[in-house]
């Protein structure tokens, strides 16, 4: 039956010759990788409308500007600096507001849309398994956060090299900070994605993520201040650091890598340090487990 695409009525399948597909069908691993790249690009608005690029790209720029300024300051001969004005490992705590907003905006973008529009069943009716979907989303969000933190650190590092600071020291310090950045990225992504996956309403997800992160940091640091300085109890103050993701990873970073810290109270002693490391891993594991539980409820 001949058919003219322009004049035929809607709803007709046109017999232009259906071609079967005999090519490659890639397996779960390749599909998961494709979803990873798709989600990572989506976190920065790539491959989507211009409007969805504005926020993530602006936040990325805002993250880089202070680093850029630090790099420039280090190179201004007149100041005669022998080191960076801000150590690498403190950059996260200093810029955590920007990180929080990025996570709050982009974690829902990654997972809430699929839940709200009920697209998830379409994924699960494909070779992809639940763990692949969650794994790809988790890895992509972590990678996106890592880039957000890592690039400014590299900018500072380049500034330090140009200012002819000690190459050995700074290479070690930036490597340590990047490791810390990776842990931050994974912890924050886990929390952000978990919260976002709980509600198909994007707005709630955004607000909830900001609230959880900002509130926990504010509450913990205020209480820490009171305990440490008013009550003179640095140990208890140190343990409180477990209750905010930012102070948690900052504490881990401080104890494992022996770095400086902006924290009000560090993890108390060796026991504290080990505790902080354990809790970090438990937190990551809990986020992963709860995400799996949440997506088990999704059915076709």
């Amino acid at each position, binding site marked *: 039956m001949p058919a003219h695409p322009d004049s035929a009525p809607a709803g007709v*399948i046109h017999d232009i010759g259906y071609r079967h*597909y005999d090519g490659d069908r890639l*397996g779960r691993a390749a599909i998961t990788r494709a979803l990873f790249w798709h989600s990572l690009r989506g976190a920065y608005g790539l491959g989507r409308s211009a409007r969805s690029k504005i926020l993530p790209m602006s936040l990325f720029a805002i993250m880089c500007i202070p680093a850029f300024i630090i790099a420039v300051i280090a190179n201004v001969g007149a100041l005669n600096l022998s080191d960076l004005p801000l150590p690498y490992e403190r950059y996260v705590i200093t810029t955590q507001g920007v990180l929080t907003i990025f996570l709050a905006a982009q974690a829902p973008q990654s997972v809430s*849309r699929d839940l709200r*529009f009920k697209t998830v*069943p379409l994924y*699960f009716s494909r070779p992809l*398994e639940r763990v692949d979907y969650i794994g790809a989303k988790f890895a992509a969000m972590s990678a996106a956060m890592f880039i957000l933190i890592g690039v400014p650190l590299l900018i500072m590092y380049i500034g330090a090299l140009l200012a002819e600071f000690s190459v050995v020291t700074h290479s070690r310090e930036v490597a340590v900070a990047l490791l810390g950045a990776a842990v931050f990225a994974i912890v924050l992504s886990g929390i952000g994605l978990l919260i976002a996956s709980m509600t198909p309403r994007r707005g709630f997800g955004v607000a909830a993520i900001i609230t959880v992160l900002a509130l926990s940091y504010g509450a913990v640091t205020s209480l820490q201040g009171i305990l440490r300085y008013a009550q003179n109890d640095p140990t208890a103050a140190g343990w409180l650091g477990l209750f905010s993701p930012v102070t948690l990873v900052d504490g881990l970073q401080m104890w494992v890598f022996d770095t400086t810290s902006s924290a009000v109270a560090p993890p108390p002693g060796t026991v504290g340090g080990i505790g902080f490391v354990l809790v970090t891993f438990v937190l990551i594991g809990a986020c992963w487990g709860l995400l799996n539980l949440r997506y088990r409820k999704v059915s076709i």
Partner: protein
Amino acid sequence: MAVIRTEELTKRFPGVTALDGLSIDIAPGVIGLVGANGAGKSTLIKILLGIAPATSGRAMMLDLDVVTDGSRIREQVGYMPEHDCLPADVSATEFVVHMARMSGLPANAARERTADTLRHVGLYEERYRPIGGYSTGMKQRVKLAQALVHDPQIVLLDEPTNGLDPVGRDEMLGLIRRIRTDFGISVLVTSHLLGELERISDHVVVIDGGRLLRSSSTSEFTRTSRTLVVEVTDQVEAVAAALTDAGAKVERDRRLLAVELSDDADYDLIRSTVARLGVGLIRLEQRRHHIVEVFGT
């Protein structure tokens, strides 16, 4: 090759048995799966896709075991859900390309097949606009496209005519028939209306309460269910008697008469009988079957 085969397939939830010892063996073609809401159709689809485990029994799709080869089955199967499932802020092309890649197609193949498939389902310039602005019919076509884009061997369509007006329903049924005849892809269609499935299916499976009521090729069904519904203004008894005298098989259901259609001359018979008796003819239509009737046969 049996495209779908189950052996004593059972699925129990606390408090309800969704499938009860279902055993079917179905050759390639268009398969109509009929059952009331809650009869077990969606549960069967989930088990066939390998995404929900059965309580007992076996199921095979395309000669692959759903328990051990779920991933491979889903490479070869397309699924079109009953509910809305399309994101509003991407275009049809973007969405179907992404779904093609999620089915395992490499990037280039995904783009080519998306272009082809969207053409086949009848989406042209619209394909570049965000899906949010589409009409219901267009959205149905996108849903169908994402089920077909990876060239599956069989597509599972869950209540594809739900919510469509009669014209849309006919178009969708025609589309489904052509997927089989033009593309060579088997189709499993679920519905709670037997009548519409009869027209396009090669094989009909009827389930109720998780149990198999009937599994037979369509010709067997259509022989027994070509019935006309006649509604007249007055003298229902007289009309029924006159038709029976003329040799037609008539059943009465209060104001309606069900006349079994043995050949096209029966239409003329009904018309002349009604005219002779001087009553008004309100309705003369093919009876649309509902699952309830199968209990009586």
